[in-house]
């Protein structure tokens, strides 16, 4: 006697236990296996690109903070690089070094969130790894408070450099952070990545081959986890990335475990970059004197940077006025959802949640 079963469509609604923002999935199940998956986005659309057309160039910086809201520095950096490309200027040396330090600290903070939520999605709900990751992230946010007075929506970078020089208290705090962070990274690694339970649940799950990743416009850690060594900091160096030495970590296989593992390795490389910047930085001005109302000549520019989530770029079209004519955000998280269906179909529900976490997308960026 066979039992008649039929597939069930379940709505994993915008309010999610596992956090990625407001993201909705329509999953079709047969038992526990996923037959079909459809993402529904747009719940956080705020009209950033339209608002940018009505704001002055410097005011748009405050809009860009709120795109990928866990990594404000790199959003700012991408935008101001695009603006500077419009007029063809470069910030002074110290400004560039401070930008790189801030961006790499932001990368560490963003990856801490990504890795911290790994264990959370696997099941230690409200869990231990998350608390440890956030404890370290608090130190980074305190350093950001010293730099620019805010912790999350920073608006630290300006066209022509950064806003202000770092205060004296910043450098000892940075030094103690650089001393402590490798130990904490080791601890997080022992807790999360060495555990057999984590390995048995994440290795081999939802692999993405290198060809598929390139065809789907993946960039960032998820591309490097599939084996493709592509990093905008090496391919088209901006700021002072051509003067510091660092490796670009890649993994084979591109499964969930690799995508998180690449982030862990990138954290270590970021610490290395910050160390070198601290040695190389010289006193000097941090910002090119710039008109209050930035009025670039008509033209367009696009400067892609390596944000923690992938390739972030602002395509700016200017028509000679004080506001951009068009500002389009090429957001990495939106592209990460390209292979959503292919990555989830055939796997079980419990794996689906971990797969989403491994993509580490941020709805602020997806929906803009």
């Amino acid at each position, binding site marked *: 006697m066979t039992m008649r079963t039929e597939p069930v469509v379940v709505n994993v609604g915008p309010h999610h236990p596992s956090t990625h923002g407001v993201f909705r999935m329509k999953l079709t199940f047969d038992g526990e296996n996923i037959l079909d998956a459809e993402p529904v986005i747009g719940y956080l659309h705020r009209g950033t690109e339209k608002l940018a057309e009505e*704001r002055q160039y*410097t005011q748009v910086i405050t809009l860009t903070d709120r795109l990928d809201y866990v990594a404000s520095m790199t959003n700012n950096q991408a935008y101001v690089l695009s603006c500077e490309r419009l007029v063809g200027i470069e910030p002074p040396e110290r400004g560039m070094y401070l930008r790189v330090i801030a961006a790499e600290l932001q990368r560490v903070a963003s990856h801490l969130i990504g890795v911290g939520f790994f264990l959370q999605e696997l099941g230690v709900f409200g869990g231990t790894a998350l608390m440890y990751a956030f404890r370290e992230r608090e130190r980074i946010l305190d350093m950001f408070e010293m730099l620019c007075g805010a912790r999350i929506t920073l*608006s630290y970078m300006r066209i*022509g450099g950064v806003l202000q020089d770092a*205060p004296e208290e910043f450098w000892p705090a940075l030094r103690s952070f650089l001393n402590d962070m490798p130990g904490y990274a080791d*601890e997080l690694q022992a807790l999360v990545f060495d555990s057999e339970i984590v390995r048995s649940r994440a290795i081999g799950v939802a692999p993405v081959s290198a060809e598929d990743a390139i065809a789907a416009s993946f960039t960032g850690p998820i591309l490097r986890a599939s084996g493709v060594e592509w990093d905008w900091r090496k391919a088209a160096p901006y700021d002072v990335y051509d003067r510091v030495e660092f490796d670009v970590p890649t993994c084979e296989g591109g499964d969930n475990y690799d995508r998180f593992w690449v982030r862990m390795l990138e954290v270590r490389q970021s610490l290395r970059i910050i160390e070198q910047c601290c040695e190389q930085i010289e006193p000097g001005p941090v*910002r*090119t004197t710039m*008109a209050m109302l930035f009025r670039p000549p008509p033209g367009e520019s696009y400067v892609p940077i390596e944000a923690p989530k992938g390739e972030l770029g602002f395509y700016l079209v200017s028509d000679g006025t004080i506001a951009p004519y068009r500002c389009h955000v090429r957001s990495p998280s939106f592209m990460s959802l390209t292979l959503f269906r292919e990555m989830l179909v055939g796997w079980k529900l419990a794996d689906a949640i971990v797969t989403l976490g491994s993509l580490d997308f941020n709805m602020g960026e997806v929906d803009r």
Partner: protein
Amino acid sequence: MYGEGILRGLGVTLRNLVRRPFTVQYPEARIPQHPRFRGQEFTWYEQRCTGCASCAKYCPLGIIRIVTDPDGGNEQDGGSYKVDVFDIDQARCMYCGLCVEACPYDALHMGSGFEAARYSRADLVIDIDTLREREKHPSTWFRPQLEREKSDPHHDASQEWQSVGREPFLWHPKRPGQMPEEMDHRSSAAGDYGGEP
């Protein structure tokens, strides 16, 4: 051996058991803010303000409302407007600080608190009388002269308008469309913000 990683993870948790927890029991204890913290409770010095409304113009959200009367009264800079209404709507303010960055006379400064919650939206609008009367603890954000004096808005006494000034800076170009390389870098104050000294 199967389980070795599990044991290592258990060791990590046990080590963290004996560390001090990092919770701060708000509201009895607070995490101290840096003097540069961009907080609520804006500080406004009427004696320095000329009513130019650069802050209102530069605010991305348009929450500052300034109504002036051209009769003047403040003789500091050779004539200025008399400010009748100066409203800052804190309900929509995102504390980005662009208004403070825009002010050419250092009349407006960021505050340093974060507990300005009220029970109704109308109470969230700071009007000119509140700005005049409240205690002035300007944050050192984008005010290098305050930072040079090591002022700390959280612990210092209220500061008067004479002690927060600096020379007018030359941020604004002399003619429209002037590019940064062509601008005048006379004042040493420009060096605070990155121009060549």
